[in-house]
């Protein structure tokens, strides 16, 4: 079975992520089936898939949130995860949420404030998380991830719960943060446009294995009106089982 699957996910050179023949099953239902993925340092990869395709499961495996899995997996030590919900501690200030898990020193505090400034929330450092809007809370979650200078940033549908206008602003913010810090990014999403707008490479996960790997060759600034954008979009949607027309 494994031999029939082409190695869509593998690349050459130095790696930020190496996952070979990853298998996972819940009881007798296979969630990940001989999935292989390699990512270069500073590579931005979007992972598309229908619900139940195993994309979040795979992200949790890379994020060390799920150890019950077979296969060869290597990830950097410095990782950070942003979930769909912000998961801020409501009883800690915004700044303290950002510096969670770091040694509590003056230097950490300064770094936290600087990162909050990067996401435009410098003035909300002392606010309670529950006073923030959904978009602001997710920006704090991004700051909490970036303050650790991760070598691998794992994003699990981070904008899925936001409204369309906020999502556009978050795309710009994420692009900005990515260009400044250059971590390897794995973005799990079901939004095809989001994937094409942000990623260097788009993967489609179908029934636990990568069924399509496509480099995004749309020059910046990427625009939906670009015919290459439309072509890739159509190809990805059809791989996801949606007829674009």
């Amino acid at each position: 079975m494994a031999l029939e699957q082409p190695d869509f996910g593998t690349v050459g050179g130095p790696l930020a992520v190496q996952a070979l023949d990853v298998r996972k099953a819940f009881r007798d239902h296979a969630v990940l089936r001989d999935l292989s993925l390699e990512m270069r340092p500073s590579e931005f990869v979007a992972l598309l898939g229908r619900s139940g395709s195993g994309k979040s499961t795979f992200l949790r495996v890379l994020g060390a949130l799920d150890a019950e899995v077979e296969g060869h997996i290597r990830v950097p030590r410095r990782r950070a995860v942003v979930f769909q919900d912000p998961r801020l501690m409501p009883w800690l200030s915004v700044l303290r949420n950002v510096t969670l898990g770091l040694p509590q020193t003056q230097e950490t505090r300064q770094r936290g404030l600087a990162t909050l400034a990067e996401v435009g929330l410098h003035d909300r450092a002392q606010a309670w998380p529950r006073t923030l809007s959904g978009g602001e809370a997710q920006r704090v979650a991004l700051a909490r991830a970036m303050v650790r200078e991760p070598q691998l940033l794992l994003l699990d549908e981070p904008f899925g719960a936001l409204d369309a206008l906020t999502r556009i602003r978050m795309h710009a913010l994420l692009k900005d943060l990515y260009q400044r810090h250059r971590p390897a990014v794995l973005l799990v999403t079901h939004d095809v446009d989001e994937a094409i707008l942000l990623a260097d490479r788009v993967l489609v996960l179908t029934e636990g294995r990568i069924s399509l790997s496509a480099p995004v060759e749309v020059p910046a600034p990427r625009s939906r009106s670009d015919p290459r954008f439309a072509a890739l979009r159509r190809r990805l949607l059809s791989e996801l089982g949606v007829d674009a027309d």
Partner: protein
Amino acid sequence: MTPASASLASTASVDALAACEGDLAWEADRSTDPTGLGLVDPRTQGIVPAAASRVPRWLQRLLGPVALIVAWQVLSMAEIFDARTTPGPATVLNTAFVMLGSGELQAHVLASLGRVLHGLAVGVALGVAGALVSGLTRWGENLIDANMEILHAVPNFAFLPVLIAWFGIGEEPKVALISLSVCIAVYINTYSAIRNVDASLVEAARTFGVGRRELITAVILPGALPGFLVGLRLALTAAWLALIFAETINAPAGLGRMMSDAREYFRVDVIFVLLGIYALLGLFSLALARFLEARLLSWRRAFDGA
């Protein structure tokens, strides 16, 4: 949120229902509806009352108790109530002033208050310690939790004879009974609060390299604080209840002692004074619990306001 506005929020739906019973104008009034389309002003249609009454909510809520006391006084003055079994509010108030004047009431209240505070201190300390050990460690849970469940299942006051056998008939069994009630209420609520801290927050904290110590101090304990405060509130009620039972054992001073004396000499007015004192102490305890919640859970207030 102040207690007054909290009660306002909780009674808003009642007000809305009351508004519903008013005139719901389903049919358009031609004289105020020149368009003839049957359009209406939405502000007159809503089930939400347009503006709150100018009388503060807490004052409105006093109406019930005041009406009760007035009715009681009227029925007493009309001699419908027998003055020997049901003295009127004026008589009871007078008795209270006499007892205050002699200093008798203060001395007994202080004696009881001392016991309750002592019992609270011991009970809260033991309850929290137990909940921490069994909430944070597997061995602690195995060792403590089932025992606390069993203690919880036995009515606390059934332990009184045993406490007397162990501690005699001095202060110790009284404080011990109050401590026991407090400890169980605090333990049960704090333990389950620790175990029910949002697992997704714990998971998030772990992915950010939060160590065991920071996990406990920055995630689990603050997350369990609301549950602890619920336990404390129940413990305050339990403490006063336990006091009544505890003071049936040979108490030289205290509200229980006064109560049994009053019963013996058939001083129904004194009994009513004591009932009033219990009510005041209970209300004061609840106010204290609310104050603590407002202070310690200020991060929640933002949510209520949103």
